[in-house]
C-alpha cells in the first residue's frame, strides 16, 4: 500500500516531456532534459540579482542557489532610465570566478547576439528579460539551438507557453521588477493558475479553441492541461521584497523565487537574503516565517504599482 500524502498539486512529473517537442533523448548530448534538469535543481531556492563579485559572495553565503549578474538592479534601471543592455562580460566573468553556484545573466528580448556572447562566456542560464530594453519589436530569441538554457518571464498562460515553445527551459512570473510591490507577481501567478485550472477541465476540441485564443501551441497547452501545471519549472519574480512575499509566492505554487532589488536595496542585505532563503524552504511553516522576519531592518523603499503609469511598467515588454 502506498501512502500518497506527500503528493503536491504542483508536482512536475519526471516523465513529462518538459514541453520539449524534440524526440526524447535525442542523439545530441545538449538536449532539453539537461536544460530543464538544472532548473529542477534550483527548485525551492532563491536566485538573487547581484551587480558585482562582492554582492555575489554575499548572496552565495546567504544560501542563494544561483545569482543573476547584471550591471544595475531593476530599481536603478527604473530610476536612471536610458537604454538598458546586457552586462559587461568582464563583470560577469568576475562573478563567475567568485562563486561556485550557477551564474545567470540577462539578454535583451530578441537580442540573439547578446545571447551568443553570454553563451561564449559560459553563463549557466540566460534570462531573456523585459527588465532590459527590448531589442526586437516582433521576435523573441529562438532558444532551442543554444546549449545554454533560458528562463523567460510571463504574465499569463499563453505567454508562458509561447516562450516554452521557443525553447525556454524555465519560466518566471514577470511581476513588476524594481518596485518591491508584489502585487503584479501575485497577479501573474494567479492568472496562470486559474487559466490552467480552467484548461484542465476542457476536452481536446475546446482546447484547440483556447489554444487559438491565447495564441499558444495546442500540443503544449494539452500537456499543461493534463499536468495541471506548467510543464517546466516556474519561479516567482518581480517585486518580492520580504520573506513573507517569498513564502506567499511559494504557497501560490511557484517552484522558487527570484529576488532582484529587494535584497541589495535594503538595509541589511545579508540578513534579509538569509531570511528569504529560509522562508522559501519553510514556506509552509508560519512559525519559522515569523522568526526569520524579525528585525530585518529597512526593506527597500518600493514603488506602488497601482499609481504607476502604464509606460513606466516593464511587464508590457515582450508579447
Amino acid at each position, binding site marked *: *500500500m*502506498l*501512502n*500518497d*500524502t*506527500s*503528493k*503536491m498539486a504542483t*508536482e*512536475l*512529473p*519526471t*516523465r513529462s516531456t518538459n514541453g520539449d517537442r524534440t524526440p526524447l*533523448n535525442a542523439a545530441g*548530448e*545538449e*538536449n532539453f*532534459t*539537461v536544460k530543464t*534538469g*538544472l532548473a*529542477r*535543481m*534550483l*527548485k*525551492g*531556492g532563491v536566485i538573487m540579482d547581484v551587480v558585482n563579485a562582492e554582492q555575489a*559572495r554575499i548572496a*552565495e*553565503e*546567504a*544560501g*542563494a*542557489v*544561483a545569482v543573476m549578474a547584471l550591471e544595475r538592479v531593476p530599481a536603478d534601471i527604473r530610476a536612471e532610465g536610458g537604454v538598458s543592455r546586457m552586462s559587461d562580460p568582464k563583470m560577469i566573468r568576475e562573478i*563567475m*570566478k*567568485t*562563486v*561556485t*553556484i*550557477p551564474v545567470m545573466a540577462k539578454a535583451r528580448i530578441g537580442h540573439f547576439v547578446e545571447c551568443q556572447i553570454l*553563451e561564449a562566456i*559560459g*553563463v*549557466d*542560464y540566460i534570462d531573456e528579460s523585459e527588465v532590459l530594453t527590448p531589442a526586437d519589436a516582433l521576435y523573441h530569441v529562438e532558444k532551442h539551438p543554444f*546549449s*545554454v*538554457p533560458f528562463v523567460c518571464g510571463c504574465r499569463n498562460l499563453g505567454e508562458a507557453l509561447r516562450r516554452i515553445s521557443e525553447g525556454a527551459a524555465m519560466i518566471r512570473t514577470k511581476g513588476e521588477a524594481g518596485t518591491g510591490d508584489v502585487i503584479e507577481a501575485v497577479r501573474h501567478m494567479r492568472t496562470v493558475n486559474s487559466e490552467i485550472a480552467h484548461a484542465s477541465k476542457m476536452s481536446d476540441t475546446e482546447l484547440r479553441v483556447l489554444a487559438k485564443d491565447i495564441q499558444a501551441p495546442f500540443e503544449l497547452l494539452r500537456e499543461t492541461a493534463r499536468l495541471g501545471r506548467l510543464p517546466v519549472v516556474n519561479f516567482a519574480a518581480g517585486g518580492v521584497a520580504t520573506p513573507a512575499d517569498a513564502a506567499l509566492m511559494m504557497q501560490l505554487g511557484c517552484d522558487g523565487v527570484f529576488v532582484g532589488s529587494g535584497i541589495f536595496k535594503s538595509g541589511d542585505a545579508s540578513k534579509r537574503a*538569509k531570511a528569504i*532563503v*529560509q522562508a*522559501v*524552504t*519553510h514556506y509552509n*511553516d508560519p512559525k*519559522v516565517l515569523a522568526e526569520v522576519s524579525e528585525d530585518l531592518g529597512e526593506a527597500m523603499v518600493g514603488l506602488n504599482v497601482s499609481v504607476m503609469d502604464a509606460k513606466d511598467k516593464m511587464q508590457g515588454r515582450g508579447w
Partner: protein
Amino acid sequence: MSSEIPITVGVLALQGAFNEHIQLLREAAQTISLRETESKRKWKFTFSEIRNKNELATCDALIIPGGESTAISLVAERCGMLEPLREFVKVSRNPTWGTCAGLILLAESANTSSTKLGGQSLIGGLDVRVNRNHFGRQTESFQANLFLPFLSPTNSTEKSEESSSKEIKQKPFRAIFIRAPIVEKVLSPVQGIQAQEASKENIIVAPSKEMTPEIASRFTVEEVEVLGRLDRGKEGEDEGEIIAVRQGNCFGTSFHPELTGDERIHVWWLEGVVRDVVGRRGL
C-alpha cells in the same frame, strides 16, 4: 492474514529536486509490492519531505537530493539540521542515499581547489573525496548511458526467476549529469576525521561522529565499494570517473536517477532499505 509493516523514507526537502525522488520512490514501491504479492510480508511505505529534525526522527532511511550543495548545507546549518543529519547517517547508520549535491554532502572530504569555498559544510559518511562541478559549468552538462553491474539480476542478492535460467543483458541506464561532482579518490576508513585529507590545501573534511558502542557492535567498518564508472570511451583513459559508490549503509551517485523516469536504482535502493529495517527491528 498479515499486517502491513510501516517503513518511512524521507527526502531532505531543504532545497532542490526532492519531489522528483518522491515520485520515483512511489514507482519503486509499486514495483516492489507487485513482486511481493506472493510473500507474507507487506510493506506500508510512507515517503515524506523532511525539513526539520522532528520529521527526520520519523525516518527509517533518507535521500539527500540534487540541488545546490552550498545552499542545502547553509540552510541545514541555519535551521539546526546539520548535526541531526550527521547523527542519522554516521551514528545511527540509517540507509542514506545522496544524488549529485547529496553525494557531495555525504563525502568525508571535498576538493575545493577548482572552485571557491562558499560556505560548504559536509555531513560525511562516505570515505571518499569528491570534486565539485568536475565537468565544468552548465554548458558541459550531459547525458550518458551507464552500465551499472549492481542492477543486473545476476548480481542481485535476491535472485529473480529469470536470472537463474539465462543471463539478462542489462538495458543501459540513461544518466543525467548536471554540473556534476565525481569521486576523485577513495579513502581508507579511519577513526575520527580524515586527518590526512584535512592537512591538505583546498580540501575540506566532515567532522567525525563516533558510533555508540551498542550500534558499533552491529556494524563492521566497511570499505568503499565503487559501484559505477563513467566510460565515455575517451582515449588515454583506462578507467572512467567514479560516479557511484557505496560504503555500508551510505550510497552516493553523481548523476540524477530521479530525472530519468527509470526507477531501477530506486527499486534496488529501497530493497536495501527493507533489508535494513528487517534487521534493525528483528522482523
